[in-house]
């Protein structure tokens, strides 16, 4: 069963405006790899070359923060990709 990924506003240009998409994967890394296959470029916006979550991004699985990409994801979970916003 897929999880639901909720896409932060600045990343929706990659998902053709969709605010949430279904994705497969047993870890955050796998979920992001699945997204990258369909929405090229989205992973690099969140993850640096050393596979670390970028410092203006927070990833939550339901209400639990994912400190690393190894964080487990189960079917039916909600994965939240939260980006710093700058507008005022």
């Amino acid at each position, binding site marked *: 069963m897929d999880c639901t990924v909720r896409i*932060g*506003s*600045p990343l*929706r240009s990659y998902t053709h405006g969709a*605010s949430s998409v279904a994705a497969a994967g047993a870890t955050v890394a796998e979920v992001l790899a699945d997204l990258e296959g369909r929405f*090229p*470029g989205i992973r*690099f*916006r969140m993850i640096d*070359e050393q596979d670390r979550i*970028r*410092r*203006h991004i*927070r990833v*939550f699985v339901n*209400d639990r*923060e994912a400190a690393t990409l190894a964080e487990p994801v189960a079917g039916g979970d909600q994965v*939240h990709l*939260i*980006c*710093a*916003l*700058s*507008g*005022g």
Partner: protein
Amino acid sequence: MALSAEERTRYARHLALPEIAAAGQERLKAARVLVIGAGGLGSPSALYLAAAGVGTLGLVDCDRVDLSNLQRQVLFDNAALQRPKAVAARERLLSLNPGIRVVAHELTLRAANVREVIDAYDIVLDGTDRLPTRYLVNDACVLLGKALVTAAIHRFEGQAMTYVPGRGPCYRCLFPETSAAVVPSCAEAGVLGVLPGVMGAIQATEAIKLIVGRGEPLVGRLLTYDALELRFQEFRFARRADCAVCGERPTITELRDSPETCMTDALQSLRRIAPSELQVMLADTEGRDPLMLVDVREPREFAAGHLPGAINMPMSELDRRLAELPAGSTAVFMCRSGGRSLRACGQALRGGTVTPLQLEGGLLAWAAEVDPALIVAPAG
């Protein structure tokens, strides 16, 4: 600070709330709140704080009222067009509530002045649209021990959090660092006019709660709001032991302007072009000087794949090699995803001999939108 008969009438609905009552209203009257940015967020927060009877209200803004502001900045009307925002806002707030004091700070916050401005207030509401200012204000509040209610908006999404000294994480604990290159502004992305109305009202609510000492502030919780789906969510986050400003061994112990702050003003006027726009410009060379294409990635990345005709000037060599570009020419700076090229444009603007353009989204965007055959090497 006792209330006058007129104030008892004006604030009757507050006085009817046991959670506020006369004691809370007197605290509001004695409170000093600074609103940074008289824009989309600052408009509703300042209006509600003035109406609520916050005794001293400061407003920081150095801009003038523009017609495109009126879609969301409800402090202003047509008659205020072209007037300094801080001054026009002060008049509006005093006409709403003549019993308070409103201070207009018509300036840009910088390391050199932020301490002096903030020190005269108890609580700071950050509604700036400049990222470097967000970090400067956060750091100043941590170092000076001031409560900070911060909010930010983008298109249909808003975020808010509250920092209370000694009680929880600061904004840097939430997002340790970021860059204008990766976080788009509202001017580029657009914003639903009523969105900052919701988020600014939340900021005012937080300030009032902190002043009267009631309720549970948004400490250690990031509140997000999606207007399209009408969904509020909150995410708990903790103080980082390694936070650069509020952590165990802080590296920020005095206020400094980030290199980006120094560049921000110049970059406001920078033209950023989409890959499709560059494609059109490259095809249409008739009657104009050719565009210089300057790729600022490392030689190894450049060798793996680059645009035809591009020259390679790695960031480390850029300052001394800018002179190689013909004076008066237009140069499109590009990198992998847009971070380095933005800094390169800042250097070119300071150099002043060429007109820089930035390829937005970098060569990754070019590959995604124009030419999938372009090989874009990993950075580094």
